[in-house]
């Protein structure tokens, strides 16, 4: 190929390290990582960002993200991030958490960070299951989904109903921007990137707490092929977790 006549229009963002990931084929994590990295590159914030990974499949996110990161105990990422932001109020502080980290063990820390209006952005990866530990029920597991701890599928009487933490957080005045996107289509990925960029902007403008929930495929624990798992998100998961803006008091105009 005559490369002189061609321009590279898509490649790995600088905020993402050139390391192969341990994520399963078709997993949403790597896409989410890339979108976060692209947004940070576009904002020029890579060297002024500090991130907190979860305990979950993305526990090794510091091997992939090319900025400062500190591990947190399971669920405590938003408390850790709060401490960081107090020391460095001028830096972009983000947490990257799964459904167990954010909405099970970390529920109190999540709610109170949002309630205090911490100028922190949370990237919430919702794959409706516990990935790293091998497929147990998550608070976000949908009715009927068979997890290893819900024999026969999640039953509302026995196991409770899936939690919609994003809508719960919207009640907090300190939360200024919450949107739910899906990583399982071209349109979804493009929308997710816009949402993440807007959330970072809300933080940098010191408006308050922002959270982007990303419906993410987990082919391994859903026991579906990558393509089928993407379809499951688009056709089934969105019935429990409809996409769209859940709260927006930023006042920013959406560029279509």
């Amino acid at each position: 190929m005559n490369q002189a006549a061609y321009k590279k229009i898509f490649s790995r963002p600088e905020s993402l390290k050139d390391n192969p990931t341990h994520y399963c084929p078709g997993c949403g994590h790597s896409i989410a990582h890339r979108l976060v990295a692209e947004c940070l590159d576009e904002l020029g914030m890579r060297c002024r960002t500090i991130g907190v990974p979860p305990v979950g499949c993305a526990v090794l996110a510091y091997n992939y993200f090319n900025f400062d990161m500190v591990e947190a105990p399971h669920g405590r990422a938003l408390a850790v991030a709060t401490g960081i932001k107090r020391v460095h109020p001028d830096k972009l502080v983000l947490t990257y958490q799964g459904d167990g980290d954010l909405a099970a063990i970390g529920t109190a820390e999540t709610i109170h960070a949002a309630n205090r209006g911490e100028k922190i952005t949370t990237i919430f990866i919702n794959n409706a299951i516990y990935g790293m530990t091998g497929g147990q029920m998550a608070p976000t597991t949908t009715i009927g989904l068979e997890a290893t701890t819900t024999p026969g599928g999640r039953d509302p009487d026995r196991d409770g109903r899936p939690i919609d933490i994003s809508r719960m957080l919207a009640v907090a005045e300190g939360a200024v921007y919450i949107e739910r996107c899906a990583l399982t289509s071209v349109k979804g990925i493009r929308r997710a990137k816009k949402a993440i960029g807007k959330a970072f902007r809300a933080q940098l403008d010191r408006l308050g707490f922002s959270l982007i929930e990303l419906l993410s495929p987990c082919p391994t624990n859903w026991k579906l092929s990558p393509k089928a798992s993407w379809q499951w998100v688009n056709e089934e998961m969105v019935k429990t977790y409809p996409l769209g803006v859940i709260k927006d008091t930023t006042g920013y105009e959406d560029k279509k």
Partner: protein
Amino acid sequence: MVGEVVIERERCKGCHLCLAFCPRHLLEADARLNQKGYQPVLFLQIEDEDRGCTGCAMCALVCPEVAIEVYRAQ
């Protein structure tokens, strides 16, 4: 050809999502496995502008591994 796609063979995990999304069906699974045992994806170069790669980059957009680079003619 307006666009060209370069796939990092050893980075590809054979999820084949790019295959599903390419509007011109220019991607196919390689029968030969890569070192990790996945079936990586091959890009079909077709010079015809009406059938060849447009550089839309949807494959790269959906690739979870950032294993795809996309070039577009100037």
